[in-house]
């Protein structure tokens, strides 16, 4: 349609829930879309979620905010988060954590992004706590803070190692790409930021695990899309 789409209570309700969730998985978002349209008696079409979100985004744009879709690096599923485009640093977190906690987070993020596989071990992070500029943090305290970061979905933990949560990646992609320009890796397939990735041993390009899975599906001899050498990692 040519008319500028209006915000209805269904859109507002959807936005409120998305904001309070922090991050919303794709199928949850679709259920929420239906719930909001039914509650506020607005026309509902199950395949119109993207249009619905675009309407909200057109009204969020003057506020430098956006509902952004990101793909989980673990299972390749779509997730939605409300992001602030005007942020030049981790200001979203700034209101929820203390100076020293933020410093620990930034240093943890450094470790994760600079690592080979996108993970930082809890030992390495706890050692960081000792060297913080603001104030030294005891190991027990740092463990507790890490737990909170996981609960709030900034980090996710697997086998004692930490990586960035999908929510963190969606919200901070721009920040990371601009502040870690030379180090941050982009997936060769989808061109989005890649924290966890498989890397070609010959030419160094990286790909998301779900992207690798899709790209090499059905191929018996996977080869690097750039340099054509055999792909050395186990395809997931």
């Amino acid at each position: 349609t040519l008319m500028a789409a209006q915000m209805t209570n269904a859109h507002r309700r959807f936005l409120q829930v998305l904001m309070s969730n922090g991050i919303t998985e794709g199928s949850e978002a679709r259920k929420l879309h239906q719930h909001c349209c039914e509650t506020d008696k607005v026309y509902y079409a199950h395949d119109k979620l993207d249009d619905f979100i675009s309407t909200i985004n057109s009204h969020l744009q003057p506020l430098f905010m956006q509902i952004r879709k990101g793909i989980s690096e673990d299972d390749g599923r779509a997730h939605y988060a409300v992001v602030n485009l005007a942020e030049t640093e981790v200001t979203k977190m700034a209101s929820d954590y203390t100076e020293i906690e933020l410093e620990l987070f930034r240093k943890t993020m450094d470790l994760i992004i600079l690592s080979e596989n996108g993970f930082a071990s809890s030992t390495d992070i706890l050692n960081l706590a000792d060297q913080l500029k603001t104030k030294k943090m005891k190991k027990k305290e740092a463990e507790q803070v890490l737990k909170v970061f996981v609960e709030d979905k900034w980090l996710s933990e697997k086998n004692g190692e930490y990586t960035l949560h999908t929510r963190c990646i969606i919200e901070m992609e721009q920040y990371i790409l601009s502040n870690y320009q030379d180090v941050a890796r982009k997936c060769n397939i989808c061109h989005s930021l890649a924290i966890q990735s498989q890397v070609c041993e010959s030419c160094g390009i990286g790909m998301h695990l779900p992207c690798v899975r899709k790209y090499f599906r059905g191929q018996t001899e996977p080869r690097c899309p750039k340099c054509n050498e055999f792909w050395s990692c186990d395809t997931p």
Partner: protein
Amino acid sequence: IPRQVSELVQFLLVKDQKKIPIKRADMLKNIIREYRDAYSEIVKRADRTLQEVFGLQLVEIDTKRHIYILINNLPRAEGEYLCRGKEKEKMGLLLVILSFIFMKGNSVKDSALWEFLHLLRVYPGKQHSVFGDVRKLVTEEFVRQKYLETTAIPLTDPPEFKYQWGPRAEKETSKKDVLNFVAKMQGKDPTFWASQYSEAQTN
């Protein structure tokens, strides 16, 4: 000026996420700064944006000290009652407390409130599996968020307190909604409680 409006909207959303009441002084210091003359215009536009885009409204709950909160403008959906977040359980407890206070004539002594909560297996001294430190939740968190108001009862020793609805509860829900909730829970018609019913009609 539009930049000030969008910054103020962000500021209010962040404060509201934690249900911290917002002081006018903070708005002036952090956002409006040198545009003091345009203060009321900026606030008005921010409020309009909040309503149009987010379904939230800026409401002054203390006209003397100029303190504001954001309330939810959207009609309440089935099963959503007061909650707009993942804190469904806390809001459930709050609704029960607000109901008790209303049904008892809008004011209850703290001893009566805790006696009532005992019936729900919620004890002030004991850690609750869902709510944690319940005494802190009720006497500090709910009060700070302006859902409940507590005042000392004069001439009591040891000091006793009474609980009433706070300004956020007044704005975010209604006596009618609360009475309907009680009626639903007890399987009766709201008119069963004649005096509460007539009070709810005029609210």
